[in-house]
């Protein structure tokens, strides 16, 4: 492997930090390249239909596009002993990779010139730049014997593409030199405009003439040169202004001949689909196709899991040869290197979590007892009239050997209390259910409740014991990465750092401790969160909204009676909320702080378009929230505005107080709330798990 040997196999998180060789060697796909299911096929590089390759930061756009570019194609041709022309025909295309950021589009503005004037200049600049790139590829494609015979013909054909002042070059090298000279002249004019206030470029080729004309001219020269496309791969389109994107959209619309465009951009980087052809918009699947990388991964969890496992294995093979994991005949599965959080209620870990004290002294038992005693002084609650009743309930719920079940039992009592049920009767039935479960470990009502609430219950026990909640296991990390391979690599990078810092030997001996994994997850969450700080005002608004949302989810997670389990999701009608809050919700989605929930519960109220969203799971360790989403909380208009409008601080405090009061003993507002719920559109509310 070329390049350096890092001290952490995951330290290179971005495709652009990788060399061409590394891109080639670290590339993994979910299916063979010629299979329609493969990522590579999904890029549709050999299809004339232009494609937008979209995805959030770190979803793998650049890796895919660079892998498909001519520089890497050539390496593969060599490997398969194919000449460049034969290789191009076999692939069906040549990829001409260009970074939009390299154009420095910020130069094409201001300086006392009109926007139209700058657009003309930008258009010509792009024409020259892509023309040069296409000619460079042609130069590489032509092996010597063909080159000599047709070079002049190509140059003549290309010179006819110019509106005036055609270049008189006799070979491709000189033609490239001439185009570069024109671009240099344009550079000078663009720069000089800042001093002179004047801009009078000599535009010798109009829009599309070179970009589409050069490939056509090339293939017209000989029948031997056909059979493949020139795919202009423009990466980082988000760096272009709206007007400049309009220009690119016009190229997409006017595409012709053996050339096409494959455009990479952040999801929110597409500012417009409008064109300059009488303002018409390009329509998806008519003028272009769209590949949304992270969506594709999130839609197909199994595929994504397989992909990231491969990706991690490949990293270890290349950067961590001392690793004793791997595909090549080594026995240990990748996931075995990661210590998993404890979830079995009979695991002695939970006795340690409550520090081994007897039932009555455990924090959750004290909390229930104190809450009931408090209520006694205020007139009691159904089934609880005196201290003996309290004592009877406490004995019924106690499970000395399995504190997690005991914790669940207290939650069931709180739940019955919130509903106004008789607590003595509830305690008896909880006891019976619990005993049946302990003896049979079988499925049933009790088991279902345990599974639903386990994450929240364990989180509460960690908090009671003043321990940091654990995140860990390859499955959990994969889930947290939300279809963004870079997010997973970042999680692993941070975890690896912590593990080695703590003296562990990750991927060599033992397992990576839960402690290192949890610290890694928290560091990765901080990284993700802090990325937003620099975005200024907009970023602030997103952070405020996300903090507020997380605060509410925390109230739910640590409540006596959470209204939803493992809550990190919400739903909201498209018509609900002020302009500001809707805008901030969109921004949070654009920046992947929130992600849209796919294939959630079906929409029962068909008259309203309701969006379902959740916190990006990369962030949840910041607040100790769950990584497995179960419940979705429908938000009212007031809640939506209080969360997503930064100016609504006071309103948010009220919402918080309202949530806390509904979910915690003595549940003063819970019954009123349940009446409210009855009159509300509850379509997407999670089924009440305790409504037997």
């Amino acid at each position: 492997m070329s390049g350096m040997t890092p001290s952490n196999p995951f330290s290179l998180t971005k495709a652009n930090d990788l060399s061409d060789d590394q891109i080639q060697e670290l590339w993994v796909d979910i299916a063979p390249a010629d299979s329609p299911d493969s990522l590579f096929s999904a890029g549709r590089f050999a299809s004339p239909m232009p494609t937008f390759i979209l995805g959030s930061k770190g979803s793998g756009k650049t890796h895919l596009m660079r892998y498909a570019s001519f520089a890497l194609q050539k390496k593969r041709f060599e490997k398969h002993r194919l000449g460049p022309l034969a290789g191009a025909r076999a692939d069906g295309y040549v990829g001409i990779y260009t970074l939009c950021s390299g154009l420095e589009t910020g130069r094409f503005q201001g300086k006392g010139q009109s926007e139209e004037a700058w657009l003309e200049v930008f258009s010509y600049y792009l024409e020259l730049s892509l023309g040069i790139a296409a000619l460079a590829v042609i130069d590489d494609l032509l092996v010597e014997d063909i080159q000599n015979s047709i070079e002049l013909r190509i140059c003549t054909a290309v010179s006819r593409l110019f509106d005036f002042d055609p270049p008189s070059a006799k070979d491709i090298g000189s033609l490239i030199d001439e185009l570069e000279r024109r671009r240099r002249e344009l550079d000078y004019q663009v720069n000089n405009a800042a001093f002179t206030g004047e801009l009078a470029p000599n535009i010798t080729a109009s829009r599309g003439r070179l970009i589409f004309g050069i490939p056509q001219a090339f293939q017209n020269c000989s029948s031997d040169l056909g059979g493949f496309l020139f795919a202009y791969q423009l990466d980082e389109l988000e760096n272009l202004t709206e007007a400049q994107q309009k220009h690119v959209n016009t190229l997409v619309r006017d595409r012709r001949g053996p050339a096409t465009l494959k455009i990479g951009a952040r999801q929110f980087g597409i500012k417009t689909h409008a064109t300059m052809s009488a303002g018409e918009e390009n329509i998806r699947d008519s003028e272009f196709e769209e590949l949304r990388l992270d969506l594709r991964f999130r839609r197909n969890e199994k595929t994504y899991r397989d992909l990231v496992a491969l990706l991690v294995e490949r990293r270890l093979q290349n950067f961590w040869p001392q690793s004793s994991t791997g595909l090549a005949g080594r026995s240990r599965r990748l996931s075995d290197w990661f210590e998993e959080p404890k979830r079995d209620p009979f695991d002695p870990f939970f006795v340690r979590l409550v520090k081994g004290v007897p039932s009555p002294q455990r924090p959750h038992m004290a909390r229930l007892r104190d809450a009931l005693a408090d209520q006694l002084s205020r007139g009691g609650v159904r089934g609880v009239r005196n201290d003996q009743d309290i004592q009877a309930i406490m004995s019924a719920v106690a499970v000395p050997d399995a504190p997690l079940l005991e914790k669940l039992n207290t939650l069931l009592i709180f739940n019955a209390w919130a509903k106004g049920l008789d607590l003595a009767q509830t305690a008896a039935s909880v006891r019976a259910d619990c005993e049946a479960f302990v003896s049979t470990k079988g499925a049933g009502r009790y088991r279902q409740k345990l599974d639903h609430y386990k994450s929240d219950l364990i989180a509460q026990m960690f908090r009671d014991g003043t321990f940091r909640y654990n995140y860990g296991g390859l499955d959990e990390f994969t889930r947290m990465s939300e279809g963004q391979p870079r997010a997973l690599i970042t999680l692993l990078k941070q975890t690896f750092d912590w593990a080695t810092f703590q003296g562990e030997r990750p991927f060599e001996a033992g397992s990576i401790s839960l402690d290192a994994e949890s610290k890694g997850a928290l560091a990765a969450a901080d990284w993700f969160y802090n990325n937003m700080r620099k975005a200024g005002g907009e970023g602030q608004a997103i952070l405020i909204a996300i903090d507020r949302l997380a605060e509410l989810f925390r109230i739910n997670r640590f409540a006596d009676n959470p209204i939803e389990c493992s809550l990190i999701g919400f739903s909201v009608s498209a018509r609900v909320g002020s302009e500001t809050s809707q805008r901030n919700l969109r921004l949070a989605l654009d920046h992947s702080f929130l992600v849209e929930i796919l294939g959630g519960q079906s929409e029962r109220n068909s008259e309203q378009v309701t969006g379902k969203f959740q916190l990006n799971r990369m962030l949840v360790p910041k607040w100790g929230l769950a990584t497995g989403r179960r419940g979705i909380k429908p938000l009212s208009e007031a809640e939506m505005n209080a969360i997503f409008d930064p100016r609504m601080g006071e309103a948010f405090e009220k919402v918080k107080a309202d949530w806390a009061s509904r979910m915690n003993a003595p549940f003063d507002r819970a019954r009123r709330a349940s009446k409210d719920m009855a009159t509300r559109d509850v379509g997407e509310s999670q089924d009440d798990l305790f409504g037997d």
Partner: protein
Amino acid sequence: MTFSAIEPMAHDYGLYLRQEIFGARGWQATDTYDLFLSAFNLGERTGEVYGRIEATEKVWLIHGEYGLSGSELPDDKKFEFASTDEAIYCKALIDGLLANGNLDVSRTRLCIDITGILRPHLMFITLYLKRLGIRVVDMLYAEPKHYALKEKTPFSTGSILEVRPVRGFEGASSMRGGKDFLAIGMGYDDRLLAAVAESKDKAEKHQVFGLPSLRADMYQESVLRSRRAADELGDPNFAETHRSFAPANDPFGTASVLSEVIQQRLTRGCDTSLMLCPLGTKAQALGFALYHIFEGDPLGARIVFPFSEGYSPKTGTGLARAWLYRVEL
């Protein structure tokens, strides 16, 4: 006899005059000038220098980006202009001075205190003066005793509007190679740093730290700040090979270090597109501009900058030292 290709000689920045005009020994006598320019902000440094320098005409530059209210502005002669574009702003300033006779390219003894001038403006002015044919300009830089909130001092405020080349320093893409290389003058503002590093995330980054720093603790503070942007910098191990050091108060030393860094990079691979981004002290920003004027421009290098909505009008407290740099263009 054969001739081999001769390497272009690096510019010798050691010949320029750099003189301490305020320090442990108090204020030293300076020349008197025909015209003195300085940008107004709420730091003590700029006010003290403004009061100390003798000039026939003194003009305060008012930068809207500092967000100062009318009552905070000085009563002295000032230049205000409603454009944040450095080229438009500075051209209006200099062209105005030329038109009203305050500036005569061949005669005026000009002095500029760069302490408060925004970096893109400071660089553009320097280049514009050179293009006008001005031969010598004295530039002053006043060091703070310390930054107001140590390594937590906020410098830029509001949104970062864009990362783009500074007008006039836009380079030539025709000379660009396939690999991007970005030399960053490291400062305290990790927000700006993260913005530029992320915007140029495909580039190999080289960090030029201010060392010796203005004060002993400032280097550590700047390292602390830059660590926050480690991910965007793509340098998780904080590798030695990606770092250089240039004196924080020496533009000529900075230009000289940049020259070496770029030379070394081009020796490794000439197929390189060069970018510079000065986020350190104003003295270092001047050094970046000088390097570009004398050596970077012919290489097609460009100076990029993350433009922020606003800047904090007071970042440093007190005046520790002041320097005079005689810039010969």
